[in-house]
């Protein structure tokens, strides 16, 4: 299989995957099998928190794929993440059935509240899990494809592209804030009850979601590794370093860019779909430009163009955020801002840059 080839020489990735495997196996056991009084017990809260971090890590890997290997600084990946999350949220809303506050068997509460009589057409099919899962991947993928096709064809690059992607997520945020859109407006989608028949509040489901997130991260990581070690990946790096030259050699630069961009968006969609059942809510705030730009700093902290660095960066920054906001809520923005400045100034290769052995990108 290509897995061996994909991980060859990727020491950081091997270590990361090994740690991930151990954590994935041990944490659920410590949570479910070890009694709560024990020192070794891991609370369900922690499990959910870790699961959330893992979805962030997958999102960071998706960003690193386009930023590190293609040179596209996307400030809109939060939008793909949120779209995946909304697809999952719609499925979870339909699963509530008549247990909502208003007890309508078909319509979610917010539609009853808005006095809507029937389900909007785009909500059809979301009562089926496979359809929602497909949409969580397809919608971000298609949006990224169309957007990328338009942008790359007219050779929008560099900071232009970054700001246009930011405008994309900003526009989506404004749109999803509107009640008329049919996605719950300001409040978003929440009050979920169960996923595939499993109670979302139960410890077992939480552990299952955690393991699913870990599996998705591992698979997503491997897929990205396979891409970057393939011929396609080498062309992508060539485009990153000298776009015009690659074009003149005869490669269809736009196609490579669109393909990788769309794939990255799909990964982000999967991450979003796994994120929503764990945090129990999805609202338009996920589209905010701040979220998208914050996740870029995860990648920068970890070290771009390494993929495993993105995982490390996402986990570290988010752990820091959770700790910081709990202890010094005032100081978090100072810390985050300083992180942006210091990492770009002093640590352009991120934490991965400290590691002694550098592989060919």
């Amino acid at each position, binding site marked *: 299989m290509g897995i061996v080839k994909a991980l060859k020489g990727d020491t950081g990735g091997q270590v990361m995957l090994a740690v991930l495997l151990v954590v994935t196996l041990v944490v659920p056991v410590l949570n479910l099998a070890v009694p709560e009084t024990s020192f070794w017990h891991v609370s369900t809260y922690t499990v959910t928190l870790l699961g959330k971090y893992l979805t962030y890590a997958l999102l960071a890997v998706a960003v690193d794929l386009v930023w590190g290997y293609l040179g596209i600084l996307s400030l809109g990946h939060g939008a793909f993440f949120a779209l995946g999350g909304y697809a999952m949220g719609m499925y979870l809303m339909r699963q509530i059935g008549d247990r909502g506050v208003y007890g309508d068997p078909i319509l979610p509460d917010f539609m009853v509240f808005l006095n809507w009589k029937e389900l909007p057409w785009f909500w059809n099919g979301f009562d089926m899990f496979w359809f929602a899962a497909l949409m969580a991947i397809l919608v971000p993928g298609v949006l990224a494809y169309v957007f990328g096709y338009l942008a790359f064809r007219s050779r929008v690059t560099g*900071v232009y592209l970054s700001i246009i992607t930011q405008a994309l997520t900003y526009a989506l945020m404004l749109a999803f804030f509107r009640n008329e859109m049919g996605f719950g407006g300001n409040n978003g989608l929440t009050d979920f009850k169960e996923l595939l028949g499993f109670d979302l509040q139960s410890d077992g489901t939480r552990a299952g979601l955690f393991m699913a997130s870990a599996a998705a991260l591992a698979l997503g990581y491997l897929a990205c590794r396979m891409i970057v070690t393939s011929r396609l990946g080498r062309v992508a790096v060539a485009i990153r370093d000298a776009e015009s030259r690659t074009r003149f050699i005869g490669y269809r630069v736009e196609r490579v860019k669109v393909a990788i961009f769309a794939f990255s968006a799909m990964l982000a969609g999967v991450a979003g779909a796994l994120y929503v059942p764990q945090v129990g809510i999805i609202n338009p705030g996920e589209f905010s430009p701040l979220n998208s730009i914050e996740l870029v700093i995860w990648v920068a902290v970890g070290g771009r163009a390494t993929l495993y660095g993105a995982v490390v960066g996402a986990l570290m920054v988010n752990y820091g955020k959770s700790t910081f906001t709990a202890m010094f809520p005032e100081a978090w923005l100072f810390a985050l801002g300083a992180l*942006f400045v210091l990492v770009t100034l002093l640590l352009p290769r991120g934490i991965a840059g400290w590691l002694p052995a550098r592989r060919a990108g």
Partner: protein
Amino acid sequence: MILAGMTWWGTAAAGALEEALPGLADRAFPAKQQAVQALAATGDSRALPILEALLAGDLYTREAADPPLVLARPSAAGLRLSDPLTGVDLGEVERATVKKIPLNNALRTALRGGIAALTLSSPDPAVRSRAAKDLMRDPSPESVTALRARLEQEQDAAVRTTLVLAVAVADLRVGTPEARLAAVATLEGSLYPEARNGLTTLIANETDADVKAAAERALTAIDARLTWNARAETLFFGLSLGSVLVLAAIGLAITFGVMGVINMAHGELMMLGAYTTYLVQQALPGWVDYSLFVAIPAAFIVSGLFGIAIERTVIRFLYGRPLETLLATFGISLILQQLVRTTISAQNVAVENPSWMSGSLQINPALALTYNRLYILAFALLVFVALLLILKRTALGLQVRAVSQNRAMARAMGVRSARVDALTFGLGAGIAGVAGVALSQLTNVGPNMGQAYIIDSFMVVVFGGVGNLWGTLIGGMTLGVANKFMEPWAGAVLAKILVLVFIILFIQKRPRGLFPQRGRAADG
């Protein structure tokens, strides 16, 4: 009681006012009505407060005391009385000892007409205008007479216009068919809401076919003019929004055009300018009207120094890496936001508007342009021209243009590009600060205010074309106007989304904006 009144009035100088006043205390409504009309006919300025008090229910009668008619205001013990003619205080009494003069609807109508007729002869033109408008609302044959009489001696042009209108509107209701036809002709094209209301009512009730047809024509003409006025107003709002966008974008355009870096902290530099305005106002209490003239240079200096500091400590290490610059300046924007939150307040602060900026310029009855928006529009143009002059007429401008066109060649010619970069960045940041002063007069001043503008102002730069001030001006104004014209049918949020989508599609066709740089500078 009347007798008692007569004795009292008898002692006063026997003017027309004094003769008519006792009639108000009469039990019979028709007598009171006559007294009201007589009082109004005197034209005496002292009659006005009495009639107004009567209408407000503040005029009372009392038994066996002098004077029998009193003004009363509620007080601790009951009522505090005063003489309606002289205003002399007559002490406090209990409510039961005096009796309120009762009113009926006919009397109220007479009172309003009388008050209007009295105010029509007031020495203050504004009061006369208002009185004419009051008479329009409920016209009677008498009020038309009063209006016509006033019209003949009126000197003030503005009041004359109102009087003509009032006479015409009154004629619509109570005039002969010929008078109605003439009134319709007068009102054709008038933008006063009263004219339109009068014509609408006339069309609903009119029996004379000629008058009706004429009124319908006049109404169509009015509606057509109103539509144009609405468009002019939208255009004004659009230009106003555009001027804010231009102010926000123009500093960004300079730094981006010269250095190729996106300053994500640009919005926060604007916020600093707005906060400088606030601090200047705090430092100069009582000088609100002039504080802006201090705030503008202060904001320029504060934001400019911050900008130079940012350039010297961060950006200069990141040249050639625009994406990293973007991230680093974003980090700076977070730090600046939190800085303001920590040192000043997380809440919005109140910035006062100077008095000369409140109010509005009345173009016609249906169109008023608020002064603050007008001034900011003018200010944006002023900043634009100043910047254009700096870039085209000064040595610094020449160097800035040289560096932005070809950095290596400019250095070879002896331009100290590092110094130019720092000054350019400072200039762009200073302009952001000045924009913040303008914004503080339009919107809330808070730590987050800058974030809202970074995407919009970058859109303006992209749309207008990088490195071209005219492009920024036209781009900003176009986007502002387009936004406002779409708002009525699309809603504010959707209009914004549509503009964003439009720009994304626009750069498909013209990736370098409306006014692309030409020549070698074009491909950096």
